[in-house]
């Protein structure tokens, strides 16, 4: 089976429509960014507090929001939609945007307490929330009541019991939420007497806080700066490497292509209202490196063909090179895309932004290797030739497109 047997598309003949498409996509992205006042930074970059909360049933998003607003906290409550199998269901991410370090610390407390008060009911003040307690707190709570109930239990056994109960609660399929006390009978050590004490001393809140992230604004600003620097350095590094392996114009073409990918990806993030987190920047950096792959493969083939077919005009030679590598380019990108897609569909909420970045980046990167990098070489050649026509003397050595890998001939640009 073979998809691309001896294709002969005239890629460069179509370069104007494709460049138009690139410009359109980039413009859409930039417009979206400008209109929304920049990319939507996650708490990694702007500071803030984030809480992952899982509910027993469908999360009452409005109730959460209004309860927290009453505490003077502007929150963003989003339901987790993308992601996997069951365990992410009924989870919300409560995020608040805070400006100073004190606010950050307080916000976390307030969120916790408000949730307990709103959904815990009257029990919240009296009993221990079994769905959110740690093993140590549980052991402390049960120690005396168990004594009073006549259950003789040594201290190490008490700690083990508490750990067993919390581990039971945290493993799938319960994943942090015990729905009824009766399910605890399957835990070793929970006898009917122990169960009675549990029911008396604890209650089961309808929610479970599975994770928190709190980032101070200072760290947020630092990370922003570092992220931008890292991307710029990576691009510079690529430019140097490719200029070293080929010619500097190839390096420029490759970097322009990757830069174009990054702009479009950022624009799409903004368009789909997606957050930029640390992992998303990691995805972008990976793409910078990966997107170079396809570009290098095409350039490699162009260089090889330049050696073999010395009389062919540059445009048709590049066309032929792209066609020859088309099969390989589309296939490899397609396969990497397959794995990125499975990450996007099944990888869970935490990796969702990262996976989206990869999926978009791979598609755009492949497109740019075929339709953006090569035209730049052609433009450079035309530019060089028009300069040559203006000056009748041979152009200086620095303007030559080829160096050591190519000799003389009509296809060369001087």
């Amino acid at each position, binding site marked *: 089976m073979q998809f691309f047997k001896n294709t002969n598309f005239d890629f460069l003949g179509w370069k104007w429509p494709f460049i138009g498409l690139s410009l359109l996509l980039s413009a859409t992205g930039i417009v979206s960014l400008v209109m929304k006042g920049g990319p939507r930074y996650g708490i990694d970059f702007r500071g803030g507090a984030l809480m992952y909360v899982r509910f027993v049933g469908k999360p009452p998003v409005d109730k959460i929001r209004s309860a927290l607003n009453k505490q003077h906290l502007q929150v963003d409550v989003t339901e987790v939609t993308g992601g996997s199998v069951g365990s992410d269901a009924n989870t919300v991410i409560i995020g608040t945007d805070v400006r100073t370090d004190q606010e950050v610390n307080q916000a976390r407390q307030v969120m916790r307490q408000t949730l307990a008060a709103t959904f815990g009911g009257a029990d919240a003040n009296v009993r221990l929330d079994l769905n959110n307690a740690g093993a140590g707190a549980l052991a402390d709570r049960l120690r005396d009541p168990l004594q009073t109930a006549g259950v003789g239990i040594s201290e190490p056994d008490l700690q083990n019991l508490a750990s067993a109960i919390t581990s039971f609660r945290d493993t799938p399929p319960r994943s942090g939420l015990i729905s009824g006390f009766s399910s605890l009978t399957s835990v070793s050590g929970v006898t009917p007497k122990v169960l009675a004490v549990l029911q008396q001393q604890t209650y089961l809140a309808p929610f479970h806080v599975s994770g928190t992230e709190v980032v101070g604004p200072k760290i947020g600003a630092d990370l922003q700066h570092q992220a931008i620097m890292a991307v710029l350095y990576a691009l510079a590094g690529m430019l140097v490497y490719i200029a070293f392996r080929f010619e500097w114009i190839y390096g420029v073409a490759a970097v322009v292509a990757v830069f174009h990918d990054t702009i479009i990806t950022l624009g799409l993030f903004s368009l789909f209202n997606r957050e930029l987190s640390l992992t998303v920047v990691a995805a972008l950096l990976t793409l910078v490196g990966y997107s170079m792959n396809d570009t*290098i493969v095409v350039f490699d083939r162009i260089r090889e063909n330049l050696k073999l077919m010395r009389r062919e005009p540059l445009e048709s030679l590049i066309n032929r090179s792209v066609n020859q590598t088309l099969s390989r380019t589309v296939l490899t990108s397609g396969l990497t895309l397959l794995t990125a897609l499975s990450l996007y569909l099944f990888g869970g909420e935490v990796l969702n932004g990262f996976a989206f970045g990869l999926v978009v980046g791979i598609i755009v990167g492949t497109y740019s290797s075929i339709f953006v990098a090569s035209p730049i070489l052609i433009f450079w050649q035309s530019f060089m030739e028009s300069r040559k026509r203006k000056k009748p003397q041979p152009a200086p050595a620095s303007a030559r497109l080829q160096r050591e890998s190519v000799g003389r001939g009509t296809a060369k640009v001087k």
Partner: protein
Amino acid sequence: MNRNLNIRAGIIVALVLICAYGIIGIPKSLDDVKNNFRKNIHLGLDLRGGSHLVLQVQLQDAFMAEAETVIDRLKETFNKQGIAYADITRNDLASLADADKIQITIKGVPADRGRDVRAIVGDDYPDWLLTPISATDYRMNIKPSAALKLKDDTLTQCMHTIERKINQLGLAESSVQQRGRASAEAELLVELPNVDDPGRVRALLSEQATLELYEVKDGPYTSREEALAQKGGVLPPNSKLVRAVPRRGQDQGFYLLARIPVIRGSDLRDARAGQDPQTGAWETNFVLNQDAARRFERFTEANINNKLAIVLDGVVLEAPTIQNRISDNGRITGAANQQEASDLALNLRAGSLPAHVVFEEERTVGPSLGADSIRSGLIAGLSGLCAVVLFMLVYYRGAGINATLALILNAVILVAALSYFDATLTLPGIAGVILTIGMAVDSNVLIFERIREELRSGKGVVAAVDTGFSRAFLTIIDTHVTTVVSCAFLFLFGTGPVKGFAVTLVIGLIANVFTAVFVSKTIFDWEFSRKRVATISI
């Protein structure tokens, strides 16, 4: 040719065995497999559950404390030598960036004693630079080298105190490290796996726990103004006004205390939580070391029926009346429950923090979220792997089997490398493994496409395969290098989980060069050595 093939096959088999050992050891049962696996692969906090905290140590506290010590001693020396002075004060430092700008100002020294002042400062305080502001006033600034040393020492001391606190909590595998340079960021990274109650740990870490016992001169007053009014507008010498914390129904108040404490936290030998035998209320008992015990005995004997102020972190906790001579122990009552009493005891045992800390970042992943993340990662990985393998088999037929074997070996080498290097597997790290699968198959596609091209151009099977591999090799190197370089930047810039991703991707790619070229070629050669082939399934 055959011998060469056998050697290569041997290398591959040996490698597989080494990797298997690295991952699952030598298991004797199925349970052993699981246990060894869990032991060998270190899971990051985002998969195991736990807390990751970044603290910024407010080093300026240490600078201000150091300045105060210098001021006290200067005043003593001036008094002894009969040098008059109007005042010796220090400036206030608002933030970490200002720490170096600590300054002591000496005012009102008679002009003829200037030489003595210079001599004193030059001899006794070599870390400070004296500059005259006028004929009677001087300024002391800390020297840069001394400032750097103070910062480093304070940061190290804070780190050790926090380590002691964490160790006392019994949290295995927790760690405290310096992050960034002391001179600039003064940050500590605390990792606490499997911590139950991150809120409690944070509270513990932020308490400075400086315990001091003072003689109570007068009080309690309801406010600062009342105290000043009662004393005729000015506080008596050698005393200071300290706030009392509202506890157990008593209101907030102020006490007038002696300026220098009788007992400091460093005099404590031990501290334990205990219960009052009569009331059952929880309290913290402390024991003093020998020297302090003697001092305390003399003090209490001379002050029966006076009050003693127990001051924690600059606030009066309680002020009991001294009823009889006490030598080496005391107790702090008023704890709400056992946890409060034992947390205080823990802090007293660990020693006080020389500078307070501010939390800059906290990420807590509950164990349920960790388990979910592992599950999602595995499902995504397996589905990605299946999709890729399926495609390779359909598109390249027989050669697809070759690619699949290389791919599986690649994954095995990757996991084994993680185990041998003690690298931590994080959730982005799992994403890195999955991405490696996609990129790994890239190399195979490159080679197979080249082989197909050579076959089309009419070459014989063996020649086509050879040319395919050799032509594609350079391109494979090129493409891997670019991704590795961008991963290097990721590693430099990223935090824990992102570093994990960079590491797994790089290891995966390096392993890929080996499996895609060496292993795949060996498999092809082995196929050819078995029988003469006119065509291959590709």
